[in-house]
């Protein structure tokens, strides 16, 4: 490969890395529930990806490859026992804003309840449910990213959703609030 080819390939690689950054950050934040830690995990992931870019065989699978590096960084972090952060310290302003206070309120409530429920899941279940629902990976892709059998992906996902369902059922007040907004919007 000529030097020019090599440089242009590297540039292309870096621009694709940048494109994945937002998604990686969202995933990291859903796992660790802390913005600063999510920043660190994503930085580590991108640094490792740049370092190992020759290992990426299939450019189309780049995002899955990045997610597997992120999962490894996150697992390393958990293993090092660094996870002393207060799990409730999610920053409330990390939400899109709306022009309508009522909608803001409903949105915050729903979002906070769901995030809290996801945050209470065991790490393995949390990873599977976010990789499937947020990143829309297939079960086979998730199995490869986390290096576990597909059966484990399915059982973790099922247990995660059972727990989420129970957790979100507990507070019916939100359902009433949501219906209120819909009625108001229709009227």
């Amino acid at each position, binding site marked *: 490969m000529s030097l020019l080819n090599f440089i242009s390939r590297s540039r292309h690689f870096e621009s694709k890395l940048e494109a994945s950054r937002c998604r990686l950050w*969202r995933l990291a934040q859903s796992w660790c529930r802390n913005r600063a830690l999510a920043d660190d995990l994503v930085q580590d992931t991108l640094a490792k990806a740049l370092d190992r870019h020759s290992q990426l065989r299939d450019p189309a699978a780049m995002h899955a490859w990045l997610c597997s590096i992120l999962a490894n960084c996150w697992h390393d972090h958990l293993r090092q026992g660094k996870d002393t952060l207060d799990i409730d310290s999610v920053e409330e302003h990390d*939400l899109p804003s709306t022009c309508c206070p009522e909608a803001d309120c409903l*949105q915050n409530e729903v979002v906070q309840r769901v995030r809290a429920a996801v945050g209470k899941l065991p790490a393995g279940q949390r990873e599977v449910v976010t990789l499937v629902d*947020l990143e829309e990976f297939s079960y086979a892709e998730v199995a490869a990213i986390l290096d576990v059998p597909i059966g484990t992906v399915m059982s973790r996902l099922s247990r995660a959703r059972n727990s989420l369902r129970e957790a979100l059922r507990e507070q019916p007040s939100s359902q009433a609030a949501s219906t209120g907004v819909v009625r108001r919007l229709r009227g």
Partner: protein
Amino acid sequence: MDISDEILGAYIDNELDAAERAEIQERLTTDSALRGRACELWQLKQMVRGAYPLARQKDDKNRRGGKPPGANGWPHALAAALLVVVGATSGWLGNAKIENDRQMDSQLEAIRSQGGRVVLHLFSDEPARMEAALKLADQLASERDEAGRPFRVEFIANGPGLHLLRTGGSPYAARIEQLRQHDNLRLVACRQAIARLQERGLEVNLLPGVEEAVSAESELATRLTQGWRYVQS
């Protein structure tokens, strides 16, 4: 046979093969308890998706200390929350399908009696399902309500359904071009679905006349709260 949560989840996640999916769909038409479970799982998935809106690239750089951006129109999380509520009352999984003539007829009837406004959600690239959606759209776009106003039809494509609206891949480009002659029909592609394909290194070009929405969820939420009928293909 009882259908386990794992299998039902795999159905919602589009992980089953055609035969397994057909079996679940058959059961869903007759088993209301199963329908309830499927609906709940689907809603959960939407809620998880809605709880983690994706910050856009350029704003994300200023993330510390500032607010990440909301989408234009409906913020994603609110759209997902609304879909859950509206979806629960309008029977997402139970009566939104058009997989056989009987379902097609009952949808046509319902759309006519509900003011002739319909949003067709394309979430699959299976030829039979695309075909059904095109047939329904073609029929409806030619009809008028009692006051003589044309019906309004909107296609919203995301996931594998985006294929229908792409150049170079859609087997229905000519049919779509014909549909486009109707002034009362809009073709809308989900920008998030486009971005996901682009991230995988695919080039995404849309057919002429296809518009982009911030997300399929926000567009669906808008239409459903405006009283449009929802049909899934």
